[in-house]
């Protein structure tokens, strides 16, 4: 296993104003699992898109199997044996599994044959999938299986995986890793991109670290601590959030048998959720995407109305109140999708600050906006939460994901709510910004607010929560003290591995 499959030499790519890759060189050996590490914006995506033929490098060469490799388009890369599992954007919701798979293949056989081969491959690698189902109705884990099987049907020599585990339960992750190890034992090289360092330590043979587009080091993940790798990625000492000792007060937010029908075709109904969140406490709610997170957030924020007594704030029923009325009473919500739901991308940061801050910060008077006050409020958010932007007049859409997330969270925290609900607070945010967001949430709780954090990142929840509960198909488990919970227990709370089985191929 020491033959070199793909060699990258001096790859550079610049976009106007940004250098995405500069002089990147490394090798991938046949059958190895190679990790590519880096912060957001470190140039990982550009690099894999170059290998997959979606981006042409400005300079540099690639060699595949000893021959020059210059894929002009993904088709050429696929023919050469490079396959890619995307993080987003690659499935068609309205089509069935077999059609989705056919779209990712060169010269696909007729539908019936595809269906047969899907069954064969899914049996072999323990990834059950019905070829005739409509993709829009599948769970996140199942959707990922579609992508993986689409790649496997083409017998790839190199499989690129971009953040594959962000939507899986721990058990599903184990099974995915089992499949990947099997593939690697059969001689398929895997280029694995992830933020999750512990996963990389357990799975990968080698790692290359990118920072600001350049290779800053490589390591053997098994022999390197996660902290060292993180510091290599960030290029600085990492601040770990500190939990201050704090007194837990009375229950401020109480959910009494909260039930609601699914708001749309692909939604999840909420089923009899009971919860009591106390002042000064961080309640972590885990669960695989699509198990009712969005619906729960909507019911808490007031975007979805319920029976009045189902949601109680300070012993006052608020189930029928709208978002602004709830904000006034001290319940703030930062939803998941920061650009489009939490913030209006085409409006300036000042205007976005007004959108939720108007009520509690007094940014309006007799129906007129108080621009001076609003601007001061936006500037304060930018200053206190270290939002990197040239100024508050910039549009929200112009900020990077992590910066906008800091702004959105900061906007709610500065209003000093009694209860704050955040959904996926650090999704797609780099390690340094994530640490500062988590610290801000802990500080808010220390000041006596109740905080509900909904997230799919279990490490994050374990790091900051006092209590942990799991959402599964719209039901919420009994909350348990987060301290001392093991990964297996959490996995069971999340509903275990959704009908996945361990691969049937014998490990050779």
């Amino acid at each position, binding site marked *: 296993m020491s033959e070199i499959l793909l060699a990258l030499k001096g790859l550079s790519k610049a976009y106007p104003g940004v250098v995405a890759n500069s002089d990147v060189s490394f090798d991938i050996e046949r059958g190895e699992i190679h990790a590519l590490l880096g912060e957001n914006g470190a140039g990982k995506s550009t690099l894999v898109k170059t290998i997959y033929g979606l*981006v042409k490098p400005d300079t540099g060469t690639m060699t595949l199997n000893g021959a020059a490799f210059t894929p002009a388009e993904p088709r050429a890369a696929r023919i050469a044996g490079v396959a890619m599992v995307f993080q987003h954007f690659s499935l068609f919701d*309205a089509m069935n599994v077999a059609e989705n798979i056919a779209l990712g293949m060169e010269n696909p056989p007729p539908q019936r044959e595809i269906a047969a081969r899907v069954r064969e491959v899914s049996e072999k690698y323990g990834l059950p999938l019905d070829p005739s189902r409509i993709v829009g109705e599948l769970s996140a884990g199942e959707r990922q299986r579609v992508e993986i099987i689409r790649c496997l049907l083409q017998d790839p020599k190199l499989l690129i995986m971009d953040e594959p585990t962000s939507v899986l339960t721990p058990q599903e992750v184990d099974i995915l890793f089992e499949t990947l190890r099997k593939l690697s034992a059969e001689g398929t090289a895997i280029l694995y991109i992830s933020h999750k360092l512990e996963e990389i330590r357990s799975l990968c043979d080698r790692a290359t670290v990118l920072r600001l587009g350049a290779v800053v080091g490589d390591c053997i993940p098994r022999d390197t601590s996660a902290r060292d790798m993180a510091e290599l990625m960030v290029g600085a000492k990492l601040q770990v959030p500190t939990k201050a000792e704090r007194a837990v007060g009375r229950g401020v937010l109480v959910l009494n048998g909260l039930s609601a029908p699914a708001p749309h075709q692909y939604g999840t109904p909420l089923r009899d959720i009971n919860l009591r969140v106390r002042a000064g406490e961080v309640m972590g709610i885990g669960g695989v995407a699509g198990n009712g997170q969005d619906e729960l957030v909507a019911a808490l924020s007031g975007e979805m109305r319920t029976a009045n007594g189902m949601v109680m704030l300070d012993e006052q029923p608020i189930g029928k109140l709208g978002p602004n009325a709830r904000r006034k009473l001290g319940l703030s919500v930062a939803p998941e999708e920061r650009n489009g739901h939490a913030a209006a991308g085409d409006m300036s940061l000042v205007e976005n600050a007004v959108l939720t801050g108007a009520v509690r910060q007094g940014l309006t008077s007799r129906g007129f906006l108080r621009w001076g006050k609003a601007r001061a409020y936006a500037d304060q958010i930018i200053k206190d939460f270290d939002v990197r932007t040239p100024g508050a007049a910039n549009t929200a859409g112009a900020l990077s994901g992590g910066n906008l997330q800091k702004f959105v969270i900061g906007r709610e925290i500065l209003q000093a709510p009694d209860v704050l609900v955040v959904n996926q607070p650090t999704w797609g945010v780099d390690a340094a910004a994530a640490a500062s967001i988590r610290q801000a949430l802990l500080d808010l709780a220390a000041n006596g607010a109740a905080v509900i954090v909904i997230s799919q990142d279990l490490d994050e929840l374990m790091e900051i929560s006092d209590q942990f509960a799991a959402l599964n198909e719209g039901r919420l488990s009994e909350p348990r003290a987060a301290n001392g919970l093991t990964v297996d227990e959490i996995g069971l709370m999340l509903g275990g591995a959704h009908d996945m089985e361990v691969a049937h191929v014998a490990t050779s």
Partner: protein
Amino acid sequence: MDLSSINPILLLASLMVAATPIMLAAIGELVVERSGVLNLGVEGMMITGAVCGFIVSVSTGSPWIGFIGAAIGGAILASLFGVLTQYLLSNQVATGLALTLFGLGLSALMGQGYIGIKAPSFPDWHIPLLGDIPVIGPIVFQHDPMVYVGLLIVLAVWAFLKFSRAGLILRAVGENHDAAHALGYKVKRVRMLAIMFGGACAGLGGAYLSLVRVPQWTEGMTAGAGWIALAIVVFASWKPGRLLLGAYLFGGVTVLQLNLQAAGMAIPVEYLSMAPYLATTVVLVIMRAGRAPGSLGRIFHASR
């Protein structure tokens, strides 16, 4: 009122003829929308097709060459829309509306010297054997060839979307253009071809009015047919089979209300003229199922 003056066989027979122009324009627009583009310029492309077809067929004496000219005229106008929306990223709704206004003006200009002329005749086809069947023969099998060409196009589009690889790619582009791009499909090229096909079909539909239905050239003679075609595509849930039904329903009620007017029905003419629009809308809304293509009307830009 004299209802006995209405001959049911003639009525049903003229239904297919009345439905053909809308059916042609709608099936073209269906392909365009399945590829994710909303072209509101159907009316403009139809009327341009009507005048192009009329001019070509008058100067060559052949209605067939006229139809070809109409298809080319419609496609050229559509590719103007395509370049503006796909390559210059202009707004599809505004550009489509502009295309309708532009087409109406352009056709009026082009048709200056052709008002009052009669188009060369386009004889009906009497299909041997089938055409001799009593009742069904005159209703279904004794029309001009374009009626059958239109039906063939609908059938071909249905089969193309359902069974062919190219049709799958077209649907994929319309469903999620970012994903299609990531998989390496040429989103803009697919959409340009779909837009030109849509223009050609709208042109054929317009020419059917000026060469067969009327048959002469008058300014603004499409009189809203393009808008009905657009509505039928939406109410038919982007499915060719339902589209056929919607077009025939519209054609049927149109013919019926004309006959009722002629028979002197004691209802104001305005209500009768309203009927086809109302009936088509009501029926298709009731039947409505399915959803729009995921990327419909969104601008595609391959950023990074």
